[in-house]
């Protein structure tokens, strides 16, 4: 009885007792979720355009943030440094296409996947070598004051993060569905050779998609870096993005956002209300358990494309 009580009664009593606190927990969860979504977005882009899970996406975010901090340390003003870093990410996209993807055209996806693992290690080392490995502070002037609306505590930083993610998603959704290049990206994801046969130049497409993913990684790197400092552990947020992707579907831009929010909110609520019953640290495993359940019951995720099989 005691156990049942702790699981099914007490948490809800807590919620009913302090509804405002409950809302704050949800908002905390949403803001964490937005951060996961930002990372997951980069994965979705590359997966959509090449069917490859880009293991290096987390490191890409770290590398972008490191570069930004490094450039700012030279005394360059933030907006200029941002542009320079974006340029570096585009340059990186060219290099990745030329040195990694081009020699591997028409290879199995698993081989491309492995090449991104190699890329992850390479970028990690390169970032360390260029900019050093100590924890750095990143401040590009995102406001961080807290304020209250109707008794609920909000943070400006969280609002900025949410607005950024929302804008990114809207822009990307329009890009993928209504532009010539976006259509070509989806075509390449479906069938490399057929895309080649209608004259879509794979090289250009890959450079574009890695550039976009690099810039999304930059945004994610900025958000995470401003929140918790630029450090090596940033590359590990990729691990949190994985369950987000499984939940939202690997091929869906909105899915990455919704998946991130569900996981963010879920783990915060779990931690706060079910923590006592389960012994805490729920935040660390909640996402993975949820992802596991999705894998069993809905492997394409909430919004992912079904694998089409004609019989």
């Amino acid at each position, binding site marked *: 009885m005691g156990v049942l009580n702790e699981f099914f009664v007490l948490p809800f009593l807590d919620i009913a007792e302090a509804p405002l606190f409950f809302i704050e927990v949800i908002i905390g969860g949403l803001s964490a979720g937005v951060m996961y979504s930002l990372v997951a977005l980069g994965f979705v882009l590359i997966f959509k355009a090449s069917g490859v899970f880009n293991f290096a996406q987390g490191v890409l975010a770290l590398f972008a943030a490191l570069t930004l901090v490094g450039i700012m340390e030279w005394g360059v003003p933030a907006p200029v440094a941002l542009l320079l870093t974006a340029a570096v990410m585009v340059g990186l996209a060219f290099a990745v296409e030329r040195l990694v993807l081009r020699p591997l055209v028409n290879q199995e996806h698993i081989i491309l996947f492995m090449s991104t693992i190699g890329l992850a290690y390479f970028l990690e080392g390169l970032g360390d070598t260029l900019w050093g490995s100590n924890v750095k502070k990143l401040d590009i002037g995102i406001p961080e004051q807290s304020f209250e609306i109707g008794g609920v505590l909000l943070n400006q930083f969280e609002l900025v993060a949410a607005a950024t993610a929302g804008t990114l998603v809207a822009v990307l959704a329009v890009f993928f569905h209504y532009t*010539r290049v976006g259509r070509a990206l*989806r075509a390449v994801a*479906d069938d*490399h050779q057929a895309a*080649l*046969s*209608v004259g*879509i130049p794979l090289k250009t497409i890959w450079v574009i998609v890695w550039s976009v993913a690099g810039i999304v990684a930059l945004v994610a790197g900025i958000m995470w870096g401003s929140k918790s400092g630029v450090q090596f552990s940033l590359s590990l947020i990729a691990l949190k993005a994985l369950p987000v992707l499984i939940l939202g579907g690997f091929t869906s831009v909105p899915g990455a956002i919704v998946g991130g929010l569900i996981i963010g909110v879920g783990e915060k609520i779990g931690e706060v209300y079910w923590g006592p019953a389960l012994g805490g640290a729920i935040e660390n495993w909640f996402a993975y358990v949820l992802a596991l359940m999705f894998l069993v019951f809905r492997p394409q995720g909430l919004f992912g494309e079904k694998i*089409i099989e004609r019989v």
Partner: protein
Amino acid sequence: MQMAAAKEAVAGAPLLTVNNIEVIYDHVILVLKGVSLEVPEGGVVALLGANGAGKTTTLKAISNLLRTERGEVTKGSIEFQGARVDSLSPNDLVKRGVIQVMEGRHCFEHLTVEENLLTGAYTRGGKRAEIDRDLQMVYGYFPRLKERRNAQAGYTSGGEQQMTAIGRALMSRPKMILLDEPSMGLAPQLVEEIFDIVKRLNQQEGVSILLAEQNTNIALKFATYGYILENGRVVMDGDAETLGSNEDVKEFYLGLSAGGRKSYRDVKHYKRRKRWLA
């Protein structure tokens, strides 16, 4: 090759000339051993032969999709409109007006039929009005695609996918389509329908066609000229009627023979002897 020369005199300079090409896969596997052929402006030329004879490889050598499969043209030359094109990328070739419709359709499954068609216009940039007009032209030839325009291509029938693939190629405004095995896996009636449309495209839009086909019967009905490939070589070529009435072709590719049905063993022996000679 006198016949090809005679043909050329009738139809004007050839649009495409393939001159004695040799194709090697993976640096060791010799697939084409000196294939030559010509496609005149506005012509429909058939490339016939059994599985593995080298039909697809010939088409891919022309469209340069070979390279992604680790294949390479090691000898000979390919000319389109009088200019060497053997080292151009598929992207450049499509811009010049040569596009391949691959065997097995290869539609973009998760894109709608209309989006599939639009990808075909990729190389033409953003000329909205022109592309819209061509889209209507494709729907004119394939009314069925218009009905299914918003369906995901992966969920359409085999015939619709073949039409989508051909329509997609048309959207690039090609001068020449390399059509690989359009009859594959389709009901005979549908095959007729598709070939009829292809013929009309050839006559009304002036698109030249190089057709690789195992279904010799229907291919010779629509083509004006044919080449027969065996084991990576051209073993025979001629006007469609000439080929269609040739005794060997009748026997090996059309399943007809003058002396009634022969026993399978005789045919097999005969065929084997012929192959060694060829």
